[in-house]
């Protein structure tokens, strides 16, 4: 450089500011609709979300199979016709069945709202679960299963869930080969009529919302009545294992996948925002302690991350990484060492400052644009919370002190409470 380097620019403190609120409405039959108007392009995202996740299933694969079969044929459309029309309108959809909820998210150009809603009704409320498509799907899924179980990351993850939630609960149960033979279309139809029901549905819309959306929703969804559902005992079987360490041998693996973590509090708990800060310091961002130690100082891995997640019945947190086989023990020791330091040594001001700003910057991104807004909305709405949770989180990020971090790390990251799973 020829001249003098200019002075370092001033930095303004970052803050998420005011979060746009969703406008809510109800269809004639009571289905709640939440609308977030945002963005510049004439596109919409619509999430039909049902209380129909894995927590509702009494047989493995039931929730996910019902969800995947929604697009396999309905009263008025075959699967191929349905997909052809959706593709023709340039729509993208993704089906999901999570631990708690299941549904379909559709992205489309606002001008096609009417057509898309008509097709959504077919998929969600009028699927016929044809036998042939069902058998073909199960066969395909079994193949995907074989491929997935060939990855150490999946082996470790599945085992971890079983350890922390138990083999008798849908949160923890691992899918085995034989589960693919235990479903039939009768079971799917029952599950569908119980859980894909208007009283279990919420509709979340964002984007440049077509002006007739609510009346169109009423036309297509407003007259369905609940069929009388079932309320399973969702907690039955939820228990953590007594065995804290599991090691899975995979022949020929080059790397070992490591998962270390435990069940945890959810967003509903007052300590959650503080624990989120602890999680970020430990492994929740690129500059985290685990990344700096295990990747940037020791070069043992391509990446190491920690995450804390809320579920309706519980929550969990874990650290995940893949390291070469010979470095496994070294990496594990360093993970525990970092946790122990977090419990013992107060965080330095500078590091805390970085974490605060990183987290506040993330919050700005969480509310930037129609799609991010919709996701952020659902991730509190699921828990009966609203944007006040985010304001509380932002407040905690700004105000948390080093001694509180140490205390939270001691309470929520007790080494004796942690489960350790390796696969490789």
């Amino acid at each position, binding site marked *: 450089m020829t001249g003098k380097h200019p002075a370092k620019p001033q930095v303004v403190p970052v803050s998420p500011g005011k979060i746009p609120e969703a406008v809510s409405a109800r269809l004639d039959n009571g289905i709640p609709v939440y609308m977030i108007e945002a963005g510049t392009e004439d596109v919409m995202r619509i999430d039909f979300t049902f209380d129909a996740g894995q927590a509702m299933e009494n047989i493995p694969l039931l929730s996910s199979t019902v969800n995947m079969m929604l697009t396999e044929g309905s009263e008025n459309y075959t699967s*191929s016709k349905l997909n052809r029309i959706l*593709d023709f309108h340039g729509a993208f959809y993704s089906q999901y069945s999570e631990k708690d909820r299941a549904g379909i998210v559709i992205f489309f150009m606002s001008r096609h709202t009417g057509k898309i809603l008509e097709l959504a009704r077919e998929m969600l409320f009028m699927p016929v679960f044809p036998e042939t498509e069902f058998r073909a799907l199960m066969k395909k899924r079994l193949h995907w299963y074989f491929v997935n179980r060939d990855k150490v990351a999946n082996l470790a993850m599945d085992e971890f869930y079983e350890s922390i939630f138990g083999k008798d609960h849908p949160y923890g149960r691992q899918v085995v080969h034989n589960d693919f033979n235990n479903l039939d279309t009768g079971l799917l139809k029952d599950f569908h009529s119980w859980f894909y029901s208007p009283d279990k549905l919420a509709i979340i819309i964002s984007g440049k919302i077509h002006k007739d959306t609510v009346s169109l929703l009423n036309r297509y969804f407003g007259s369905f009545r609940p069929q009388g559902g079932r309320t399973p005992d969702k907690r039955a079987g939820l228990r953590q294992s007594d065995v804290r360490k599991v090691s899975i041998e995979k022949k020929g693996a080059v790397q070992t996948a490591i998962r270390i973590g435990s069940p945890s509090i959810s967003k509903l708990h007052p300590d959650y925002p503080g624990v989120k800060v602890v999680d970020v310091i430990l492994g929740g961002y690129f500059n985290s302690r685990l990344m700096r130690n295990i990747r940037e100082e020791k070069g043992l891995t391509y990446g190491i991350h920690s995450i804390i997640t809320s579920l309706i019945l519980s929550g969990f947190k874990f650290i995940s990484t893949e390291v070469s086989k010979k470095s496994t023990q070294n990496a594990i020791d360093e993970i525990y060492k970092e946790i122990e330091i977090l419990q013992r040594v107060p965080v330095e001001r500078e590091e805390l400052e970085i974490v605060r700003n990183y987290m506040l910057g993330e919050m700005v991104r969480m509310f930037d644009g129609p799609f991010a807004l919709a996701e952020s909305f659902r991730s509190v709405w699921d828990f009966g919370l609203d944007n006040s949770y985010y304001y509380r989180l932002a407040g905690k990020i700004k105000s948390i002190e080093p001694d509180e971090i140490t205390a939270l790390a001691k309470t929520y990251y007790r080494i004796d409470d942690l489960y350790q799973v390796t696969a490789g």
Partner: protein
Amino acid sequence: MINYNRFTLDNGLRILVHEDSSTTLAAMNILYDVGSRDEDPEATGMAHLFEHLMFGGTALIPKFDKHLLIAGGENNAFTNTDITNYYITLPSENFETAFWLESDRMNLLDFSQRNLDVQKSVVIEEFNQRYLNQPYGDAMLILRPLAYKVHPYRWPAIGMNTGHISNVTLDRVKDFFFTNYAPNNAILTLTGNIRTDKAVSMAKKWFGQIEKRNVKKRKLPAEPVQTEARRLEVERDVPVDALYKVWHTGPRTGKDFYTLDLITDILAGGESGRLNTKLVRQKKLFSEINAYITSDIDPGLLILHGKLMKGVDIQHAEEAVTGVVDELKTKYPSAPEMEKVKNKFESSYVFANTSILNKAINLSFYELIGNTGLINDEVEHYRKITRDMVIEAAGRYFESCNCSTLYYRTAGAIK
């Protein structure tokens, strides 16, 4: 319509600015015109390894991440065969921090042996994690040298093997920096909640003082025309057989690029794509199948790959694939099918451009290939494709002598 302005600094740095006031964020993208195709065949993986080193700090700013994080920013980078691309998003009031950081590391990196050693080992673990320790992870490592005999696309951006990565020396790193990282070899794109005049004056202030460098002129060997079908069979510890077929295509700016892209959408775009409909749903030969073209600047590949259902004979599966592909050579796609793939392209284009970061990355790339206006015209290129163009291109490219085929088989399958 995406409006943008274009400027060039005296040192050759090209700058594009697009204002979008619907967000509170700003994005900065820096594209360096260097990728794995510019590497020495004996020392591959250098461009990508170098991308890792770019986060190791400079004498003036030893901790790149720290300052960006304090400004509420987020950043990442990727390297492919053609380019190395860095990007940052942050609240627009702190945008200048991005200029400070990116101009500083374009100016001069801190080349430490320690940083090099650590990042070599990180990249080797990346190689292991993504290519060696995943079922089918090494397929492209095998296919590239089958399809390319001469052109540097014969190795992937991560490198030909981990040995090349561990052999990199600090001298080579320095040399790589000074011959490739330069204002006159970069494109800086700024998008989001910013004002063009302010963005340009910041660019001048921070990047304007970096001197032009002697960038190595690119002289790559052209890949000779393939004249006979190539086939390879490998055996791995994987649960099911997989089939890979790749055909040579033209360059990114060539006249057939959009037609071939549209052909892959006919074949594999969405659930209603032909391969999925015919070979997964109807004939049940594959559990999944996909096709796409690489967007390589030099003549690239059309790649088709699928995983077989258990018990299906791989030759039989390949014949079925050939049947679907060959149909394109003789039979017009229906008008609704053409309309469908064009609509789908248009909508993915609209969705992609809802993000200021995507817009920044796309603008940079279009500028690099010499046609920045594509950010607005690309949909039109697809709209203009006729059914005759599809038949013509299918006939010309889907020839067996232009194709390399890989049978990726489960252990014990090869007799």
